[in-house]
């Protein structure tokens, strides 16, 4: 494991004040902010990251690029860490790079990119291309997007990890696709991360993939935490009220209600909601603070939303 100086310091800093609530959960300097450990290294991550699908694909539009820069600024101001992107997301990589250049690279940035090409010889080239777009030298996490040419890419990523060009390796899926294949890979290959779809209304991964991740010491990133906006959109459209007992888990909005459900799952390391608005980012980031639901409350959350 090749850990940089800044990450070593971060580990020490957060570890010194950590109060272990369970083997996978720790509270860092801000006693209300939930961090979780990456099983393969013990490094801690803020449980709310940021996705960029759709929201950061704004092309060369300066007005929208500046607006997204404000969103990213709010993310880091709220203690955010993981920013996840992909070559599949149109101009999102360039827009992240634009925003990072304006903000400066925060120490807390945990850069997560993906390889998305059928050309198995292009792993290094696409990594370099993405790094140039982000304006960084190396990525913290490089994932194979949607299992595309995964065997070949994985072999190259292992070499790159040894060379210190990336720190972690992962593989992704979404929308509940190819779970059987992902499970095989999780049990047969050495991975640091998997990324999959998990939210209050899509919980299939609880049956096999999440237990497999725990058994194999793999960190889990939950994508589509609002089901691509559909879930939170439906709840807000109905003007459905939060339950009275939501205050017990410090939920003020549907955003932190839905996100707390995800990040309180023991196998989940972080969730990556995407947004184009600063106000929504602030709501998302509130989910890392305060009390988290226990197993009984999580069941109550499911029941409440299903009854709506």
């Amino acid at each position: 494991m090749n850990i940089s100086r800044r990450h070593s310091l971060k580990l020490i800093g957060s570890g010194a004040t950590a109060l272990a609530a369970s083997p996978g959960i720790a509270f860092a300097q801000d006693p209300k902010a939930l961090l979780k450990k990456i099983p393969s290294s013990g490094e801690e991550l803020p449980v709310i990251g940021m996705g960029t699908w759709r929201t950061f694909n704004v092309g060369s539009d300066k007005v929208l690029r500046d607006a997204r820069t404000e969103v990213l600024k709010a993310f880091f101001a709220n203690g955010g860490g993981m920013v996840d992107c992909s070559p599949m997301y149109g101009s999102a990589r360039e827009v992240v790079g634009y925003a990072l250049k304006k903000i400066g690279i925060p120490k807390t940035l945990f850069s997560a990119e993906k390889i998305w090409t059928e050309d198995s010889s292009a792993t290094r080239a696409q990594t370099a291309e993405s790094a140039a777009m982000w304006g960084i030298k190396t990525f913290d996490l490089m994932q194979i997007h949607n299992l595309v040419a995964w065997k070949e890419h994985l072999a190259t990523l292992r070499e790159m990890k040894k060379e210190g060009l990336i720190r972690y390796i992962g593989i992704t899926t979404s929308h509940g696709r190819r779970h059987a294949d992902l499970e095989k890979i999780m049990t047969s290959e050495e991975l640091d991360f998997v990324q999959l779809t998990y939210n209050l209304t899509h919980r299939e991964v609880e049956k096999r993939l999440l237990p497999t991740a725990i058994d194999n010491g793999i960190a889990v990133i939950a994508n589509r935490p609002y089901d691509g906006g559909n879930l939170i959109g439906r709840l807000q459209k109905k003007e459905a009220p939060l339950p009275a007992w939501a205050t017990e888990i410090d939920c003020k909005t549907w955003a932190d209600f839905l996100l707390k459900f995800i990040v309180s799952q023991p196998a989940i390391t972080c969730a990556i909601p995407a947004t184009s608005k600063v106000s929504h980012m602030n709501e998302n980031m509130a989910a890392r603070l305060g009390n988290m639901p226990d197993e009984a409350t999580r069941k109550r959350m499911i029941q409440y939303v299903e009854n709506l």
Partner: protein
Amino acid sequence: MSMIANPGSYSVSNFISFMDEVYFRLFERQFEAWWPAHLLMLGLGIGIIVLACLAKIRTLAVTLAIPFAACAITFHLQLYAELTPVGKFFGWAFLIQIPLILIWGFVTKSRETFRPNIPTVTGAAIATFGIVAYPILALFAERELPGAEYFGMAPDPTICLFLGIALICARPIWFLLLLPIPLLWAATTGATLDSFEAPFAMTLPIIATITVAASVWKAIFHRQPAFSVADKMTSPLAGEIPQMKKQPKPD
């Protein structure tokens, strides 16, 4: 291994990698960069309809190349392609449409001027809609005029006008050459706007459907260039205004 596994499990929205806000901003940005070309295109659009009614097919074909080229370059290739490969695809598709239109224009012999019948009247209405209605629809959708879609600049009104012109002027056999790209765009824009739940998302697909229906009508009932009065008397086509045969002068 394909880039897309289980294609059947995807919905259209899974392929739309940008937000509605970003898409509609493209028209504002195009307006900022090219205004007042929009006004010139408006004049050009009116001119195209006049040329179609006069059956000046060659001039019409050359004139039609301008909005297709403008739309391909200033919208698809310069702006839309930044967001999605679909932009690049349709940029080239619109450019490819130009020689197809020119082939039609230079191979087709000029025919009679505008004769009102179901396909031509439908075509004229569709073409006029392409020029006039799109900016108004944008206002109804609570978008500002600089962010509206204009003929010759934005693809939807450009395709709309073209579908109408094809109905007015082109013989049905030419639809096989002239309509695939416009119909493909109609389906694409409908799916895109529908995924945004945008108002009037189905406008162009509906117009395309009407065009196809009118094309079929034209293919079945308007294969002969003209109808005599006698034909008209027995014609099943209600509302048909026949071409008057020259009557011999009485001695």
